[in-house]
Every structure is written in C-alpha cells, then in structure tokens.
C-alpha cells in the first residue's frame, strides 16, 4: 500500500485527512487508529495568530456545506510550543498546512516549520478563499504561485506540497507553474467559492457572505481537475474534494492521483478515513492489483 511522494514523504497508504477537517488528529483518536492512515494534515496555520471570521461560519447545502472559518489559528509559534509536542509522536505522517497573507509570512512560517523534525512536509495553502488579502491572490495567477512557491522553496528543505485553488479558469497552468517553481507535489482541490441566502430573513447565511463549498457535491469538479492536472505535471498529485468512501478514493487515483485526502466526510462519519484505507486495499485485491500504485492514472479512456 506504500506511496512515495518524493523528498522523504512516504505514506503507509494513500489516505490522508484534509486540513481544517480533522483538527490536530487528537479530536479523532477515539474513532480512528491514526496508524491506519497515510497521514494527517493539521489545521491551516499562519505566522501570526488569527481570530478568524465571526459566527455564523457554516451553512449546509445540498450534499455539502459552505464554511467561512477564515483560518482561525494561534500562529506558528504557538503550534511549535503547544501543539507539536503533543502530536509529534503520532504513528503517521503529520503535515502542516501553512497559509499567509504576505510573502514574508509564508517564508518565515516555512523556515520555522523546517526546523521541526517530525513534520515531513508542508502543504502550502495558496488557495483559501476566506482571506480577504493575500491568500486568494497567490493561488489564482501563475505569477503569484511561482513567486510564493519559489520563495518558500529557498528556505524549506523537506517535501513541499502546494494546495491548489479550484477558483481559476485553467488549473493545469497553475499546477505547472507550481511544479516549475519547485513544488514536490500538488494537492487539489481546496473549496469552491460559494454563497447561501436565508430567503425568509433576506440575509446571507454566512457572516462574511461568501464561503468555501466542500463535501460530496464538489466531487465531479474535483475529479475533473485532478485528471487535468495529472496529465499536465510530472510531480505527484494528491486528490481531494468530496471523497466519502473507498470507491470515490479509487476514482481519484484512476484519474491520476497518487494519494487522496478526506475532508468534510470526517464530519459525517468520524471513522471514514480508516474505512477508506481498508476499502482501497480491498479494491486492489478484488481487481488483482499487486500494488496500490498500479491504480494511479489507470483510467482507460
């Protein structure tokens, strides 16, 4: 089941949990043996603490949800001092999702995380649609993404995964720019920008009006983007967006993903990540695949 994503990031199996949906892993240890996962990606972290957006931050939609959490977190230094010691010995890969509102913040944050022995990779969040300045701008243009990835690359020596925004016209171009700037892998998709209205009250349902759409409803969009990106780049692609069961995960791998992440589905079934890992294995056995890597891009079309 092993997957080697390069530059020292080796996963026990292709299943990771998506940033912002699995806390720091601790929230789920009553439900999942983390040793059954390829990795967990902890909450979006920024150099400086952020209070995030006001409540309400969530609206349910048909087969999905919108959120506008706005990257609430206590900052990289707090992560290093208070959280890292608690989670560093988890028997799985712990990746940090790093975000920022300026180039300097990304670079400083990445430098600090580089020194953490037990964090084998950063997932660089250049796509969070909730941050008014910064976050969005980097991920939606080829120049923006080249700039942030190449600057972070200079100071970060471990595996650099770049998480792409789906809110662009040509995601393959953005992925190629990230690859050229030194990314070791790309993950996609982050949430799709959306909106919800309470007709009775004639008011938006989210405090900041717009938010990111996730969950089962985004899967077809995510799958298409993973397929397009996998054809365009040589580095590994990590697929996510609406994955709710092992069949969904297999579809992403057939489309070209080397590994997958599970997000919103953790809210519906806190045990789903381990079930998906088991289910991918079962699929491989049933279809006579010796190694899970044989699934990657095995779509026949």
């Amino acid at each position, binding site marked *: 089941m092993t997957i080697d994503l390069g530059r020292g990031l080796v996963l026990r199996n292709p299943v990771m949990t998506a940033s912002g949906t699995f806390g720091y892993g601790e929230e789920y240890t009553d439900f999942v043996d983390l040793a059954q996962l390829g990795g967990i990606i902890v909450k979006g972290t920024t150099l400086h603490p952020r209070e995030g957006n006001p409540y309400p931050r969530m609206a349910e939609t048909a087969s999905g949800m919108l959120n506008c*959490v706005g990257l609430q977190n206590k900052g990289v230094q707090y992560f290093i001092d208070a959280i890292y010691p608690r989670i560093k010995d988890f028997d799985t890969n712990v990746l940090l999702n790093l975000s920022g509102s300026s180039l300097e913040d990304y670079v400083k944050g990445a430098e600090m995380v580089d020194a953490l022995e037990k964090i084998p990779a950063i997932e660089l969040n250049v796509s969070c649609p909730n941050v008014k300045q910064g976050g969005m701008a980097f991920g939606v243009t080829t120049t923006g993404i080249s700039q942030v990835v190449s600057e972070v690359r200079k100071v970060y020596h471990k595996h650099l995964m770049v998480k792409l925004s789906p809110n662009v016209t040509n995601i393959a171009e953005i992925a190629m720019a990230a690859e050229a700037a030194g990314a070791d892998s790309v993950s996609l998709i982050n949430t799709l920008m959306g909106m919800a209205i309470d007709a009775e009250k004639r008011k938006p349902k989210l405090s900041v009006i717009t938010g990111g759409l996730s969950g089962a409803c985004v899967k077809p969009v995510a799958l298409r983007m993973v397929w397009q990106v996998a054809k365009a780049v040589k580095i590994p692609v990590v697929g996510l967006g609406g994955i709710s069961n092992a069949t969904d995960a297999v579809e992403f791998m057939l489309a070209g993903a080397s590994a997958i992440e599970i997000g919103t589905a953790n809210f519906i079934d806190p045990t789903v990540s381990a079930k998906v890992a088991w289910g991918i294995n079962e699929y491989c056995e049933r279809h006579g695949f010796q190694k899970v890597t044989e699934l990657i891009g095995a779509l026949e079309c």
Partner: protein
Amino acid sequence: MTKQIADFKLVQKQDFGRSVLLKLRAEQALPEIAPGQFVQVRVDGSPNTYLRRPISIHDVDFQHNEITLLVQQVGEGTRHLAMAEMGNVINMVMPLGNGFSLPEKGEIVLLVGGGIGIAPLFYFAKVLVENDIRPMLLLGGKTESDLLRLADYQQLGETFVTTEDGSLGEKGFVTMHSVWQNQDFDKIYVCGPKPMMKAVAKMAAEKDVWCEVSLENLMACGLGACLCCVEDTVDGHVCVCKEGPVFNTRRLKW
C-alpha cells in the same frame, strides 16, 4: 470520557405534536455521560440533511443502554428524525461536549428552560436528585403544549411555569416569574432560545449570581475539529461543541 459512534434502535416513541421523544437502545454498554452533553445524530433518508444534527441528551438509562432525546421539528432533519419508527436504527456519535458543573450540596439551584431548551435539564435534574440536591425548575413556553413532560419534571423538584399566552402558570417570559422576587439562588443553569438565555444571564449578573448557559450554535463536526461553531468569549473564539455547550456567563461577551 471516551466518545463512541454507535447504532441505536428506537425502542420507545412518544409524540407531543411538534416534538417527539425518542428512546434509543444500544447493543453495547454506554460510556460515562454527564448531564448537558449532547449527541450528533445521523439523519437517514433525508436527502437534504447532509450533516449530523446535534441534540441534547434528555435522559440516560445505563442499565438498559438507553439514551432518550427530545426533538422539536424545525426543519427537514428533525422532521425525518420524528418520522422514525420503532425498531429503526439511528446512528449517533456521543457523548459530546462538557456538561453542567455540579453544584455543592446545600446550594439553592434553579434550572431555567425555555421551549425545547428544557430537554437537557431533565437528565441534569435527575443527576442532581441522585446527589441529594433538589433543584427548583422554572420552565417557559409560548403556550401550554410547549411544556412537555411537565409532570415528570415536577417529580424532580419544585417547578414553576410561565407561558406567553397565559394558558399555564404565570403569563409572560421566564424572567417575569414571581419566584425571582420570593427566592434567592446560589446557582442558575439556563437552556433555551438565545434571547431568553441572555435575559436570564443579565438578571443573574445584576444579582451577582453564578450562572451557566447551554448554547446551541450551528455545528458541523461536533468534535472541535472544524471551528464552525465558535462563540465569542473573553478568551476569543472558542468551539461550543468542545469547550461548551455549557458556559459560565462570565466567560461570554454578552
């Protein structure tokens, strides 16, 4: 306290019109459960209900592995829950959050419930009685039929009632009841609509009385993982599902 995900079977159902009482039995022993904690219920067969629904634990019977919920129908999810039939399987993640803090013996305790907010106070009152503390209860509703299981609450402590239309007890809101003039309290616990909780919290603050409220913010994960359910407190944004749902009012920015 370890959390579990488990299938329960509906073994008893009682209809109260807009609300319904669901007694649910698990195969295996229940974990420790504190009054004020809640469950996240998966609503099956409801196409527009994607996320689980948080519902307070209304009563627990450890001997028979049973949890009882009191659910008011406000939308599609709760409507489908109310349609469950005997023997149906209902999946729950539980127990979640932190419960009410137990008062000391000898303290005079008032539990204030409004509307469906009376739900968690039943198990709480039961636990208090088991601990030799006989609470007083002040329950409010719009009209008589909102005061569900009133006779059962009355068994657990002296119970005062208000209705907005005056159909039962004193007319008006819970904050207008005469008991506030006649009795001092050491601890007040409140669960109900936010405006009501704020009004009671304000009265408690004016009287300098210790007060806990149980919040019902919109939730996604219920586990402290998504940060969707936050309340603004003196310590910044904190998760209601993990650090609450019960909060001392001094911590809130009300």
